[in-house]
């Protein structure tokens, strides 16, 4: 028995999934002020008459960290940067309390400028004066050599022991200093509330005598154990859209096609792409408040248009959304919404069709339009907006840069096979959208709860990246921000680096209790460069990536 709970913007949905069936479904309005209570209310509804000992796993997808970051709340947090030479310093003013320090590395991890102890002391004094105890430390090229970050952290620990510091090289080791710095900042800022949430959840589940493992859904569509999640709050950002993509995949299990997943909720539609059975990732990482991060996430486009988007007239001109004023009229809402127009026009028999007609007429009348024509206006505009956004996603995907000859030569043309519709309002809109676009569509009786279902059956993911430089005698590996010396191992070969990466991933999987999924891990990147000076090879540079890709847990064998 699997439990999945997905916190959405409007509603929180939960399912109990057992033997290929959703046996229980629960729904509750989301209370942003008290997400853990909403989650527990849904959980308790699901648990009525259930034997808690039969639960195999609970997966939560929560908007807590997303909300914290989007509303920029949390304790006052400082960002200490060692940005060195290059772009002007003010490019990196990423947070209200940003401090700049000397100290600079190059891309091989060689020190250009050492940190200045005096200067560090001054900044620490300012932090104390301003009572800022949450601190993120980030250096340019700290992914290649974190020594300066560690030095500043050690000074802080000594001079300001009450402060808690996060270093960026532990959060991410990919290139891109501002994204790494900003991700570290968000981590430092959300850490406290996130850990309170985890404490609360663990306590609540204990009270309910649930002994099954509890996982959190990540932006990359995989899960991680709640305990692991303590140090990585940011990875849970945008797990809602990831849940819908995984839900779309779950409903079409083993039916590999190029699909677009549309999760049409009350106020928004989330669009994601599945290419040859694999969800498409955002090449730049998730974007928060306009700033890019190093959080691996699906490429999702959120359109402020959903089934409950209210229809209104302003100077006799029709406006659709973006706000929701309760449910659509056919479900007893006070105002006509998008779903009502589809309901009337295509005689869908959703809810109480008569209510749709009644409220729609109130709008058609002042526009002097027959009801059918008015509905056509609404549906046409809705479909156009959705199509435009789907097209834009494809365009962005096609424009993704590539840096190797084979990537350009072998890039294949993409043909969209179908639309997978999920979310409460999918039933009304998807069939018409698909016939307009002349492609197949897929709706399932579980479409309305596919998010929670996707969370329930998503498997854990884990990505390990290793960088090794035999000339500089340095390596770095993530997650965990491990760096060290290769001990002058100049003969290190690509196969060796791959083996170290594989072993690291296996060990980490065991430590996190994901052992069995490690065998599914695949190499996602293998790069090697000869370092040539004059005519001699002085060393080699390696970059290896390995990943347990998003997918489903072993127990899942499709939906009935």
């Amino acid at each position: 028995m699997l439990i999945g709970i997905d916190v959405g913007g409007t509603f929180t949905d939960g399912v109990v999934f057992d033997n290929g069936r959703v046996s229980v479904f629960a729904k509750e309005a989301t209370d942003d002020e008290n997400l853990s209570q909403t989650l527990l209310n849904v959980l308790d509804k699901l648990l009525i008459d259930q034997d808690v000992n039969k639960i195999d796993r609970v997966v939560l997808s929560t908007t807590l960290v997303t909300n914290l970051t989007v509303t920029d709340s949390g304790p006052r947090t400082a960002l200490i940067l060692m940005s060195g030479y290059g772009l002007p310093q003010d490019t990196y003013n990423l947070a209200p309390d940003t401090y700049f320090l000397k100290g600079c590395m190059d891309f091989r991890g060689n020190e250009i400028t050492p940190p200045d102890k005096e200067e560090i002391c001054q900044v620490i004094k300012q932090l104390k004066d301003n009572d800022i105890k949450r601190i993120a430390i980030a250096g340019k090229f700290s992914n290649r050599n974190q020594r300066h970050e560690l030095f500043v952290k050690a000074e802080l620990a000594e001079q300001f022991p009450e402060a808690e510091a996060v270093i960026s090289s532990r959060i991410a080791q990919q290139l891109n200093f501002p994204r790494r710095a900003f991700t570290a900042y968000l981590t430092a800022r959300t850490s406290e509330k996130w850990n309170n949430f985890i404490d609360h959840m663990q306590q609540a589940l204990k009270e309910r005598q649930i002994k099954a493992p509890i996982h959190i859904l990540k932006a990359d569509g995989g899960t991680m154990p709640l305990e692991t999640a303590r140090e990585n709050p940011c990875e849970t950002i945008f797990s809602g859209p990831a849940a819908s993509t995984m839900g779309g995949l779950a409903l079409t299990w083993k039916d590999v096609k190029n699909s677009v997943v549309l999760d049409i909720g009350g106020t928004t539609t989330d669009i994601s792409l599945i290419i040859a059975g694999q969800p498409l990732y955002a090449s730049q990482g998730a974007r928060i408040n306009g700033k890019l991060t190093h959080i691996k996430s699906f490429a999702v486009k959120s359109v402020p248009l959903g089934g409950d988007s209210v229809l209104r007239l302003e100077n006799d001109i029709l406006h659709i959304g973006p706000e929701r004023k309760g449910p659509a009229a056919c479900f007893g809402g006070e105002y006509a919404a998008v779903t009502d127009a589809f309901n009337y026009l295509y005689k869908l028999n959703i809810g109480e069709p008569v209510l749709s007609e009644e409220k729609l007429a109130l709008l058609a009348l002042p526009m002097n339009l027959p009801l059918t024509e008015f509905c056509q206006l609404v549906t046409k505009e809705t479909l156009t907006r959705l199509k435009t956004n789907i097209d834009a996603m494809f365009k962005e995907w096609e424009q993704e840069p590539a840096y190797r000859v084979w990537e350009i030569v072998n890039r294949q043309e993409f043909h969209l096979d179908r639309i997978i519709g999920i979310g409460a309002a999918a039933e009304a809109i998807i069939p018409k959208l698909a016939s307009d676009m002349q492609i197949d569509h897929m709706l399932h009786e579980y479409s309305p709860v596919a998010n929670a279902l996707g969370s329930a059956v998503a498997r854990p993911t884990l990505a390990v990246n290793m960088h090794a430089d035999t000339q500089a005698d340095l390596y770095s590996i993530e997650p965990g921000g491990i760096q060290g010396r290769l001990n002058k191992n100049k003969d290190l070969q690509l196969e060796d680096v791959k083996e170290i990466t594989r072993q690291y991933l296996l060990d980490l999987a065991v430590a996190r209790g994901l052992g069995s999924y490690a065998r599914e891990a695949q190499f996602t990147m293998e790069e090697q460069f000869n370092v040539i000076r004059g005519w001699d090879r002085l060393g080699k540079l390696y970059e290896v990536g390995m990943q347990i890709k998003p997918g489903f847990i072993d127990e899942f064998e499709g939906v009935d």
Partner: protein
Amino acid sequence: MAKKPTGLLFFPAFDWAISPTHPEREERLLYTRDQIFEEGIMDLPQIKEYKPKLAEARDIARAHFCVPDVAAQVTEAHLISAGSTLVIADALMQGEIKNGFALVRPPGHHSMMVSHGNRGFCNINNEAIMVEYLRQKYKIKRLAIVDTDVHHGDGTQNIYWHDPDVLFVSFHQDGRTLYPGTGHVDERGGPLAYGTTINIPLPPRTTDAGILYVLDNLVMPVLDEFKPDLVINSAGQDNHYTDPLADMRFSAQGYARLNEKLAPDIAVLEGGYSVETALPYVNMGIIMAMAGIDYSNLREPDYEPGRFKEQNLETIKKIVDIQLNAFRNRADTIAKNRSRGQDFETIYKNIFYDTDYISEDQTERLRLCSNCGGFRVILSSAQHRNAKQYEVYCISVPSYCCEDCHREAMDMYKQMGSKGNYDFIYLQDRINDQYKSLDTYKEVETIL
């Protein structure tokens, strides 16, 4: 409205090399990748990143006579590198960007109009392919190519030698001290395009001050007077003080200032082989200058302002004066050449392909037209590395030539078809955008 961004197309060809230890190898743009990605410059609103595409065979044939055909002279990497310049050209002309930088390899500025193989690490000329594309698609006539590579841009010079509408300016380390050995003061263009080729051979160890003097006192005034529709920077990075193949003293700050002043519409990467100590910083400098980002915080780890003193300013001043004068008097010289009254002017030359070790003999004939720059015919003969000897006859019709020249060139192609002395006869008809090639042995004509 917000200001338009700078277009950037980064194509490091991480899976292409001339040979494993060659300067033109996979590692060349690796640290540049590290630097520009780590800085996060691609995430800034001032930058828009573009994706490469493959150039088509006809794009290449518009600028070159590839012997025996385009496929024999280019790899996929070359097509991507050339195609990338076209992506940037389109983005600029369609108003998406204010300027653009094709940060791509392999390079091209040593490739001449006839290509038998690789010379100076180049098989095909990216700038010329782009210029002819811009002329064909967007009807642009006048362009300036400023070659800022440390080596003389002899390939580009060769292609535009007879074109009065393309100003080619190259400053470089003196040819007596560096490959390819050309680019002397007196190389000023063909008889009807005299003065629109300008060479500034600089003494070894010229610094920022020397190069910026040339820019301020020669390049900028000449551009002001020539009034090109577009300015292209053939942007080599080997004037840098750490370049292993050359001996100059230019810095990343110098490169940034140069691009700020020159303000090219499009820059295309050429040479530069100090892969670790120069390229990451020089490339950042060029991108920042083109995007209007303050570059005062940029420097190489071992650089201090005032590290190099200019020793050769007097020599440089002299060259600048001479070249400015020649440029300003070009109309008189062209009129004198035209008045000689012959039909064709003939030049004999030998071209050496250092990378592929090919020696090519050329007879080049230019029609001394009274209305336009004339069209040219190249008779070329070379033994390729596969031991095959090729004798080819190439007729090149410029994009902007008169009807007489066009007609005569087409007739010439027809007549040559019946003569069996050449293996291939080519007609590069840019007026009709049609590129014909006749294999006389197989009697097969190919039209691109």
